[in-house]
């Protein structure tokens, strides 16, 4: 790698510092056709909740556009000690959660909560989409997230009101950050909302 002459030019520490870097570069990942590659939204929401708040108040996903989140997530991955995969997961969650869905044009007038809806699917949705902020016990895992178990908590509201909040986002009183529309999961539809709502009532209501 180094000729006799280069050994004279570069001190020993340079050689030792560069060798591992060159070795590591052999395993570098080829650039994808587009960037960054999509990550796992559910993992991303968990990683976002677990890591960003260790140093600072978690930012509202709607604070930045998709491209601004890219230039924010990459340097943050260096500061926070995240792998590339973890960074892509968080980025996928943030980019999915920053869309502002107008509520003025659409109003949910009535939603029927299916009494025989599969509990597991509601639980799955909660575990994948909601648990990062609301916690497995529903008491709130992040500052500002409300306590579902409180009698005066969010579950005191009607199904229609809660469905509106889930579909279009909601900011709890005292919280500086709103819940993103559909909890940041764009694939969540009204039947999924109904299922997760039934799970919330079955699991956390008094």
């Amino acid at each position, binding site marked *: 790698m180094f000729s006799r002459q280069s050994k004279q030019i570069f001190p020993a520490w340079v050689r030792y510092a560069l060798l591992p870097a060159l070795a590591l570069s052999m395993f570098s990942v080829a650039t994808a056709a587009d960037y960054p590659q999509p990550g796992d939204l559910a993992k991303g929401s968990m990683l976002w909740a677990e890591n960003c708040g260790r140093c600072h108040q978690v930012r509202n996903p709607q604070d930045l556009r998709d491209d601004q989140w890219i230039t924010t997530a990459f340097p943050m991955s260096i500061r926070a000690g995240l*792998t590339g995969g973890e960074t892509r997961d968080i980025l996928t969650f943030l980019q999915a959660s920053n869309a502002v869905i107008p509520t003025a044009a659409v109003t949910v007038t009535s939603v029927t909560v299916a009494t025989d809806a599969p509990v597991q699917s509601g639980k799955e949705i909660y575990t994948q989409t909601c648990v990062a902020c609301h916690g497995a016990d529903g008491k709130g895992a992040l500052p500002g997230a409300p306590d579902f178990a409180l009698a005066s908590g969010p579950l005191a509201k009607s199904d229609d009101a809660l469905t509106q909040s889930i579909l279009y986002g909601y900011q709890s009183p005292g919280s500086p950050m709103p819940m993103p529309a559909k909890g940041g999961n764009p694939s969540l539809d009204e039947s999924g909302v109904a299922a997760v709502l039934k799970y919330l009532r079955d699991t956390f209501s008094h």
Partner: protein
Amino acid sequence: MTKTSKKLRLGFLALAAGLLLPGIVLADAEYDALQAQVRDLAAQLEAVQRTLAQIEQKQEEIPGTQETAIAALKQDIADASEWRTPNSLIHLAGYTDVGYINPENGDGSFAVGSFSPIFHFQYRDIVMLESELEIELSPDGETELTLEYLAIDYFLNDYVTVVAGSFLSPIGQFRQNLHPSWINKLASAPPGFGHDGAAPTSDLGLQLRGAFPLGEMRSNYSVYVSNGPELNAVFEDDEFELEGIAAEAFGADADGEKVVGGRFAILPMAGLEIGVSAVTGKATVTGLEDEDTGEVTEIEGAIARDYDVVGADFSWMWKNLNVRGEYVRSKVGEALTGTTASEGATWKSWYTQAAWRIPATKIEAVVRYTDFDSPHSSEDQQQWALGLNYLITNSFIVKGTYELNDGIAGSRADNDRLMLQLAYGF
């Protein structure tokens, strides 16, 4: 048939005719009106058909109208996509703070902390230039501009990033992660963790850093080689004495001696991080500080001394509670010869901090204890800092901090302070 019955029949017929005739006449009038209405509608329909035919004819006369509209729409979509995913991204971030400081022994004063723009230039997921400037207003009104860091980050793979240039010191947590005013939960840095304290602030060199899973745990690391710090001495009582460590990035290596260092941390569970740090190398006295004015002049002929730093840190987040702590010790060895020969010196500091966000409010209570030991007894300081913050948004914060400082009586380290601060991260 009798005459009477004939009369009755005639009378009946006359009555019937009298009743029916007006109805027949009325029916004829309605029929005429309906006929007229149908004629009008037929005329209107013809007019509409003519207009439609004219429109169709006009559309046919302009070839490719629909195709043109579709092409324009496609172009609009393509333009929008260009904006969403160009290869090069530019982003301006940063933070700033302003406030009011009222020391126990002294006059209160409004103050501008700093304006710190951060520039991000990124090419795909391959490389990023990140740089932070620090613009401050000095007490005499001068504007001071400092390059806080300027580094090129080469994202080698998912586990390794090469950071080349000047970078925030990865030793511990405060400097690299917590010092921006919108992140720091109190209005001041813990003693020993600011500039010229026990902890290094920045370095200029080459750094490898990243993260990898460690079984069920996660871990992260950084290793670097850099120009290292420079030392200041003071001539006091007919002998030289080490005054301080200028542990920040220098554009040239005055003594040609490099330092190597790094940090390794594990996250055994969600929300908990435990790290250890170390630096070793050589550092040389390059500045002589005037005892009275504090001005530093260059000095030559000093020999390189041993320079070693060790540190440990942790942070733990659980719901609304955030607890962290950090220890750092910087030790400079003795120099028996050279122009500034003197004994060695050690700076060390540790702090622990708890912040609790009151549920369902935007209020946060903070308490921090720091113990800073310096070779100069006038700098030794124990500090309780109490804070109450109001989060207008998650990056726009009103902070109230009261420092209870305990040092040598009459020294700056003994002066309690009230600080009010508005911090905004963008």
